């Protein structure tokens, strides 16, 4: 990307570097949020529906982990994936895969904690009906998750927001390699450190616009779907 160019100019010119960076940012964050939902929602639901020793401790921990600093998560994943670390043989450090791993870890609590609360509340409402219909534990979880899907969507959007916005984790495990692991947020950090503040700000506004657009699209889909099934 050329120096001192207006960020909007880059969009208008269809600058390929900018588009590659946007594509990577979205790919990493979207895949991470999908994985986090696949793992975090059943996790939250199970926590809501089962009783065991230390359950309260686990719930407090899960809630607290919503605030896990991205740079700490990044550091932990870095040490795991480093060649000198336990999972070094995977060879995914400084690649988009590592970025997905780090972001997934970050987002799981953000999806799981609200899921737990929502499912717990829903269970107290649905308990008698589902028991009367003879629904077993597995069926309970799937039924409640599906019925709560619109509320859970907000948790997923929160997770996506966190992923799209963070720079600490992806910087450490991705290495901000030009043309390979450079995302919107790491580019903004880089341009800031090169002193090109107008460009950094412009990129920042583009990022915010994209995230707003995605949120609007998801919301629109929800309204449409709700109209179908109440």
């Amino acid at each position, binding site marked *: 990307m050329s*120096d001192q160019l207006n960020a909007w100019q880059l969009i208008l010119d269809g600058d390929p570097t900018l588009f590659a960076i946007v594509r990577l940012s979205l*790919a990493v964050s979207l895949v991470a949020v999908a994985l986090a939902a696949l793992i975090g929602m059943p996790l939250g639901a199970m926590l809501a529906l089962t009783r065991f020793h230390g359950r309260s401790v686990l719930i407090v921990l899960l809630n607290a982990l919503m605030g896990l600093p991205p740079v700490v998560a990044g550091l932990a994943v870095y040490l795991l994936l480093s060649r000198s670390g336990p999972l070094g043989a995977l060879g995914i450090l*400084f*690649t*988009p895969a590592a970025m997905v791993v780090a972001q997934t870890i970050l987002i799981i609590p953000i999806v799981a904690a609200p899921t737990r609360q929502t499912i717990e509340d829903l269970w107290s409402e649905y308990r008698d009906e589902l028991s009367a219909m003879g629904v077993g534990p597995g069926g309970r979880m799937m039924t409640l998750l599906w019925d709560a899907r619109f509320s859970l969507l907000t948790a997923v959007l929160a997770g996506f927001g966190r992923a799209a916005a963070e720079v600490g984790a992806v910087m450490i495990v991705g290495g901000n*390699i030009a043309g390979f692991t450079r995302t919107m947020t790491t580019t903004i950090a880089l341009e800031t450190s*090169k002193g090109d503040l107008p460009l950094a700000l412009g990129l920042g506004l583009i990022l915010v616009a994209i995230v707003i657009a995605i949120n609007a699209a998801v919301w629109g889909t929800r309204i449409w779907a709700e109209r179908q099934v109440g």
Partner: protein
Amino acid sequence: MRFGVWSIALIGLLGVTLAAAPATAEDRSIVVASTTSTQDSGLFGYLLPLFKAKTGIDVKVIAQGTGQALDTARRGDADVVFVHAKSQEEKFLAEGFGVKRFDVMYNDFVLIGPKSDPAGIRGKDIETALKAIQAKAAPFVSRGDRSGTHAAELALWKLAGIDLESAKGPWYREIGQGMGAALNTASAMDAYVLSDRGTWISFRNRADLAIVVEGDKRLFNQYGVMLVNPEKHPQVKKDLGQAFVDWLISSEGQTAIAGYKIDGQQLFFPDAEKKGS
């Protein structure tokens, strides 16, 4: 059922992302741990396409401070390390993590400060300048991050006979970040800061800052390159990495380095000797 289809689609997407990563790693590419000065000055943006055109090798640069770059290499997460702190590099070699060290190029440091020059040091030599800054407690930003520039800064204070530990005060601000961040901070605080010339020339947020001291022989800054020792880390791509090292010190590479200019000014001066140590 819809749920199932979505899960499969997303797992597929993940699979593609994951597959893409190591596959590229198997292609001809190497990881080079280097410093923020080589990145922020734009040197790599200029050199690497030339190298790729010649050899087809993709160079992935992780830009960190010198200390961090050497640590990354010690952990085996890089194939080549290209930094500018000779004593730290020699320690790295002595520990057995590097194969051989080659001089590649040098640039110089410059002392940057506010145009108003509260310490009154414009045009002086570096020793006098630092003594004046400390005496007048003029705001000074230090990188504080074990980088080559930081190491050089500390060495210069020592040269000026100042014991930083006792002389430090609120005027000395260690930020623990890269050159760009240090310049931004100095710009915002109207403070003095030691910078490499290359980063300064390509820095865009100068506000009221300008060069106040330059040209002193003691501000000379040497860069060196090393291949990470495959005996310590067998997965190091030694052939591809060596190709990069060789190219940097070859006449082609050296000419390329000299050819990098911003606003007509040459930033780095090639000085490879090819025998290495």
